[in-house]
């Protein structure tokens, strides 16, 4: 006689761990972090419940802490005051980017056919940023080793941006998962928003420059766009090397 079939959970929508099910012990912040990495589907499920605000707050706090810790590694290349300026700027930049892009995320979720409350959308964005900052902490030892091996701001800037892009890619996947969980009819809108968010964050690194190198003022006195600043920095570095 054949054994009875195993009770099936909600079918997973992605290959790895995006199963939308209740999270055990949702009030425990450490459990929340663990689930964010291992079972992100549970985070998406919890963010849609009435107690989502507490979870969202913890995710934001962990996101701020993670970015601040990575900021110390970024500032370690120059040392001195940069050890607190770099984390402060990275945290400020992260919060400003979230604030700037949140209204458009809410609009884009509606355009994508998703019926979500504002608190769920906020929570998903905080979760995305938190996940990317946790991954940045994972990259921190690698970044520190490279920062001690070179004086090149261009090289280290590229490396930090690359690590951040890898981290935020996983974070944005979580937002996409929220869309699927809530019955999105179109994925294109959230993809467009993801590009906008990445562009805003890139520009924010220029708005709050310098982050790696020291400076006489906390904020820059001249306004520049991201690419213009990047190319100028590369040219300056090439000229300095030729001398």
């Amino acid at each position, binding site marked *: 006689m054949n054994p009875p079939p195993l009770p099936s959970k909600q079918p997973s929508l992605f290959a790895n761990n995006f199963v939308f099910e209740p999270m055990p012990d949702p009030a425990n912040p450490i459990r929340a972090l663990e689930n964010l990495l291992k079972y992100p589907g549970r985070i998406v499920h919890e963010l849609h419940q009435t107690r989502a605000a507490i979870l969202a707050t913890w995710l934001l706090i962990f996101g701020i802490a993670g970015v601040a810790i990575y900021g110390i590694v970024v500032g370690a290349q120059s040392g001195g005051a940069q050890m607190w300026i770099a984390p402060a700027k990275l945290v400020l930049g992260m919060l400003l980017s979230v*604030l*700037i*892009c949140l*209204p*458009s995320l*809410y*609009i*884009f979720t*509606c*355009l*994508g*056919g*998703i*019926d979500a409350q504002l608190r769920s959308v906020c929570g998903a964005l905080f979760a995305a940023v938190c996940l990317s900052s946790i991954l940045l902490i994972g990259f921190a030892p690698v970044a520190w080793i490279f920062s001690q091996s070179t004086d090149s701001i261009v090289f280290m800037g590229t490396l930090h941006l690359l690590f951040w892009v890898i981290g935020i890619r996983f974070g944005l996947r979580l937002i996409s998962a929220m869309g699927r969980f809530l019955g999105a*009819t179109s994925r294109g809108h959230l993809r467009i928003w993801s590009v*906008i968010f990445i562009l*805003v964050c890139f*520009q924010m690194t*220029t*708005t709050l420059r310098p982050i790696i190198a020291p400076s006489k003022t906390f904020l820059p006195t*001249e*306004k*520049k*766009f991201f690419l*213009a600043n990047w190319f100028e920095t590369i040219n300056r570095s090439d000229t300095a090397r030729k001398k």
Partner: protein
Amino acid sequence: MIKHLKTLLRGEVDARCLEKPNLRWFIGYCIAIVLGSSVYGATIGLWRAPLQSVFTAIKFPLLIFLTCIGNGAVNGMLAQVLGSGLSFRQTAFAILMSFAVASLILGGFSPITLFILYNAPPLASEHAILGHSVMLLAHVCVIAFAGVMANRRLFGLLRKMNGRDATARAVLFSWLAGNLFLGAQLAWNLRPFIGSPQLAVQFLRDDPLRGNFYEAVWRALRHLFL
């Protein structure tokens, strides 16, 4: 009302809402247009001067309402002649709904355009041209996106009302053509929206009804090619 506006953005508005248009939704759409387009308009004008941002914040929703009112009769007639079955009231309602969608999208983008403005080199700097170009491009892309999404939603609604793709498409394109035609001219009459550094900040240029958008384009093309 917010729930209804979200339904509008999702494109899930029932055709029944057009069968019996109600005053509460009408007021809601007007509020959405005023809030969304004013806030966005302010970010357009801020590049020139704070006073210009106030002027543009007033003129942007005014442009939308004047276009709706100016084309109200012809849009209603076109809807009937093309066999959509919509009355004048339903036509006005549908067009107001699409402008409400566009205004909500524009409002959502306003923190981003404000951020771009913050990072743009100021008027007096040597890179002012770059800043102006980036801002212009950003506004064109945002307004185009809002327009495309609003028209997609309007097309979906027309299809639900009528049941025929061809009729819905014909009605949509005829409304679009009319609104673009009148809207461009009204935008010309209500200029400036961005403002020119060489000219004073004004609510309207001197003698605003004189001149014509299409004649200006024609003159520019002639200068370019002849």
